[in-house]
């Protein structure tokens, strides 16, 4: 027994010796080798420059999307502020909510899907941050209409309790999704079945013919209503579309959402911009 322990002890030391050898190699000779390769690359690069071969241009995607932002830590002494730094953005964001991983609409339309009406797109994107697309773009009618809406987690997609009381307005890590009635059962509109259909379409898109692609898109957008829900449908005291109390909004928040301040603002927008909002596409033509 003692002999086995002694052997194990020696083996552990041997492993430790190898570990140290690797570290020593990395901080010594590996550095020299790395520097040599860097220098060779620089020489190659200089040769290419001399031969005036055009440098490979970065794609628009690399320029606009990949180079867009970086994670930074600001050391303030009493706290460390960790956030995404967006190039050219002055104000601090202070947190990172992350993309909506459940929404199948976002796979094509992105997390900021509204861009047609210049004056309203930011407002609409703000709502899209905590309201699923189907909430406004699908109008259920007849037996399918349930009037039931619930919160789902942006990351896991699971139905969760209302986050309204825990977070500041609009900073929820959850979104509101409507439910429809299918054969008497409650089914969320962004069902797994729909999600899988869109995922398969995305995978096979390039191999499809024009007709097949068109048919698939029609099927995906089949439930989308021609006219979306408009602001006043929710921002009103009488009968707001969303059951705000059931969604966990406290009375003071409901009052704020349906307040004269907000409703008055919407009226101003209606006067100036809303007609264009109701006819998507016209805004961009005018710009």
């Amino acid at each position, binding site marked *: 027994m003692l002999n086995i322990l002694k*052997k194990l002890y*020696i083996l552990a030391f*041997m492993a430790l*010796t*190898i570990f*140290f*050898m690797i570290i*020593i*190699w990395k901080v*010594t*000779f590996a*550095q*020299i080798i790395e*520097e040599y390769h*860097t*220098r060779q690359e620089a020489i190659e690069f200089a040769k290419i420059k001399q031969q005036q071969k055009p440098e490979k241009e970065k794609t*628009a995607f690399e320029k*606009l999307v990949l180079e*867009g932002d970086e994670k930074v830590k*600001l*050391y*303030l*002494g*009493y*706290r460390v*502020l960790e956030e995404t*730094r*967006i190039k*050219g*953005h*002055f*104000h*601090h*964001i*202070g*947190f990172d*909510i992350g993309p909506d991983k459940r929404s199948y609409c976002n796979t094509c339309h*992105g997390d*900021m899907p*509204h*861009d047609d009406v*210049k*004056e309203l*797109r*930011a*407002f609409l*994107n*703000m709502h*899209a*941050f*905590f309201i699923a697309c189907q909430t406004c773009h699908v109008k259920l009618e007849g037996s399918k209409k349930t009037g039931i809406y619930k919160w789902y987690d942006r990351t896991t997609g699971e139905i969760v309790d209302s986050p309204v009381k825990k977070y*500041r*307005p*609009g*900073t929820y890590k959850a979104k509101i999704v409507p439910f429809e009635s299918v054969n008497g059962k409650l089914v969320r509109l962004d069902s797994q079945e729909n999600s899988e259909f869109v995922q398969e379409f995305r995978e096979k898109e390039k191999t499809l013919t024009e007709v097949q692609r068109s048919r698939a898109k029609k099927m995906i957008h089949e439930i989308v209503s021609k006219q979306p829900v408009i602001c006043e449908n929710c921002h009103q005291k009488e009968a707001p579309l969303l059951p705000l109390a059931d969604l966990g909004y406290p009375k003071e928040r409901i009052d704020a959402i349906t307040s004269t301040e907000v409703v008055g*603002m919407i009226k*101003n*927008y209606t006067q100036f*911009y809303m007609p264009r909002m109701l006819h998507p596409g016209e805004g961009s033509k005018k*710009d």
Partner: protein
Amino acid sequence: MLKKSINKNVPAFTLFLTLVFSLLPASISFAADVGNCLLCHKYPGLSRVDEKGKLRLLFINEDIFNTSVHAKVKCEGCHTDIQKIPHDPAKKVDCLSECHITEPSTEQKFSHKDVETSIVNSVHSKVDKNGVEKKFSEDIPTCKECHDEPLYRPMSFFKTIRSGISEEAMSRCKSCHKKDDFIFRFYSHVTSRLHRTKNPLNIAEMCGRCHDNAELVARHKLSTRAAFSYGETFHGKAARFLDERIPDCLDCHINKGESVHQILSSTDPKASINENNRGKICATTDCHPQASPRLAKYSVHAEFNLEQSPVQYFFTFFFIVLTGGTLLPLMGIIFLDLLRRLFPNAVIKRRK
């Protein structure tokens, strides 16, 4: 001493500060938002991608903004074109515009106009001394390339030096001054100004955004990736450990008492890093007061690069070979010794 005092009682201190800062914004009114801009701009989703594909995030994080130096400034103080709600797309903010508050010592409207003068006289000017636009002037940084919203970094000097607000000091302020908002801002402003509003690591990162960009370095024929090579020095390594006492880029590249915006080229006779002035950099009272001027003659921005710094390269090469050449065989011998102990009777039979 500063570092020691910061590390002392960290958990209790952090808890205290968390409480103070979590309570402060609630107790301090958002004086600047008289236009109720946060009615919309408090929502993080208020955003769009513009025609050029650039993300326009219109969200204002109220908690963070309240701890910034601009918290007292009304939104329209900077966004001067916004006069009504709903407003049209806002124009680009001109940081040099006369704005918002009255500068108490002159009782004139405050402006960052003087910064422009410093920049024009600096190496970061878009034009040369003859007023001709420099080559690659588009690379020259604008305000927002270096500055995001400056946040207060208050310090306590009550009995000890540590970061954050001192409750004792605040209570002394309260004996004369009644408004919490005023006390918080005045205290934060003064104590933040007694040291840097960014720590050395953040300053190096800020400069590195341009000065470590290989393309930009090559285009402007700069001799080094400045922040990277700073990171290789003792100062840079201490910065990585968040040491506040060590010098950062600004300490060496700016003449004492001058604006941080007035960084001069090393060829400029007035520059702190000019060959004739360099000796004074290290020997300041705050750094190495007894140091010989020769201390500043070492290559601060030397990289392990044969072409850029051949002398340092061969010295480093020698010590790397010495270290590796000594320790690796030593480890090899220890390994073989352990192997013998593991198999004491093992022999390699030779063919007869």
